[in-house]
């Protein structure tokens, strides 16, 4: 489509929380692996498309035959992959996408590409997270002018792309209305259940006994549950928490919420075990 735009699929993550290679997993009904699906998406918008892998990492299923860029030794995380891409084609603009974003649809990439086309001097075109407003660096366009900026940060030991985009005060785009949960990533097999088109992304805070049971204080969750009550049952099942809907209540955005309370992306949800103050 746009021959100047190169595509880069970041698949070099270690998937340690998934217990297997995320890129080779199949989530949708189309039978495509994450890598296969993402590559197809990138090809809709890019000329050459590359697969970014760690040194020695095997090519994930669905990525066969795609040219591979290996992380430069000594680099860290996704930034190593992006820098390797610029070393491959310094003057190119790169549409970069992580392989663990199963909810990204063409419209999400189209908005990035359109914005970049308006102003090809931009070093970065990225979305703001629907959850916290921070930059989403792993589904973004990196223009040629981004290369020296990234190199400068890397030299100072800054390897977190989100932090770099923040420090560079990159103006951010809003996600398309219908796709506010599109950049929900998938880190655990449990997330997979929620990783379907139409999922909402909510933040869950855990307290007391439930925090201990869950082993977490806070997390982001993709869910297809439409109401607070449905979400309670879903989370209870997903994590085998044994939450009795007759006993455990739900708070949404710091207010008690009835079972039928509709959930929206960006909501903060807390499950309330019976209280024991006093």
């Amino acid at each position, binding site marked *: 489509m746009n021959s100047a735009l190169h595509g880069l699929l970041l698949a070099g993550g270690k998937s340690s929380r998934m217990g297997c290679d995320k890129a080779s997993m199949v989530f949708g009904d189309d039978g495509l692996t994450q890598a296969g699906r993402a590559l197809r998406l990138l090809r809709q918008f890019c000329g050459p498309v590359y697969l970014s892998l760690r040194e020695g990492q095997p090519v994930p299923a669905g990525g066969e035959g795609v040219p591979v860029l290996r992380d430069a030794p000594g680099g860290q995380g996704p930034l190593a992959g992006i820098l390797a891409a610029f070393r491959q084609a310094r003057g190119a603009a790169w549409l970069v996408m992580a392989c663990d974003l199963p909810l990204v649809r063409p419209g999400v990439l189209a908005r990035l590409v359109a914005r970049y086309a308006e102003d090809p001097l931009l070093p970065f075109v990225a979305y703001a997270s629907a959850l916290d407003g921070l930059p989403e660096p792993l589904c973004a366009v990196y223009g040629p002018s981004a290369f020296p900026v990234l190199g400068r940060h890397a030299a100072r030991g800054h390897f977190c792309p989100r932090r770099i985009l923040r420090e560079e005060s990159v103006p951010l785009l809003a996600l398309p209305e219908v796709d506010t949960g599109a950049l929900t990533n998938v880190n655990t097999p449990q997330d997979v259940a929620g990783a379907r088109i139409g999922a909402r992304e909510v933040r869950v805070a855990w*307290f*007391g*006994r439930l925090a201990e049971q869950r082993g977490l204080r806070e997390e982001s969750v993709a869910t297809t549950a439409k109401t607070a009550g449905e979400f309670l049952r879903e989370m209870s099942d997903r994590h085998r928490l044994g939450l009795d809907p007759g006993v455990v*209540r739900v708070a949404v955005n710091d207010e008690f919420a009835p079972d039928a309370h509709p959930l929206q992306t960006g909501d903060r949800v807390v499950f309330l075990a019976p*209280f024991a*103050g006093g």
Partner: protein
Amino acid sequence: MFRLANHPIDPAPLRRELASEDCGGFVFFEGRVRDHHEGREVTGLYYEAYRELAEKEGCRLVREIALKHGVRAAAMHATGGLVPGDLAVWVGAAAAHREEAFVACRELIDAIKARVPIWKRESYVGGSSGWVEGCACAAGHGDGRRTPSSMTSGIPTATTSSDAADSGRSTTS
């Protein structure tokens, strides 16, 4: 007025705030950490609150009960680690006459226990610990379910003037 604060809490400012020349009865309740529970020796408690909602709901309860009984009311609850003898919760109600003050104070502590999102973890001699779960119903009968015997043994104390009373030796509320 409902406050959450890290242990140790100091109710003196609330006491001063509630005391008023038109209030002849001032009842307050202090819930203190008790050194035993269901036959086990308790070495400490840890209170964890969902702060945003706890403060909101606590303030609502105080307003509700103050309005209902025509009293001045306030309460505060400690968070964090406490040991036996420490002050966990303080509830005060001041009114023209003692009757309303007694009733409101009692109602407020019961409501706080039932409706404010605070959780409690007990530590026992020997090093074990566990979350103590209150009763899910809003009846306000204090601890229930896993801990059927009520831990409340504090007795509200009253004076006939704005001068605050001794708290007596109440234990965990």
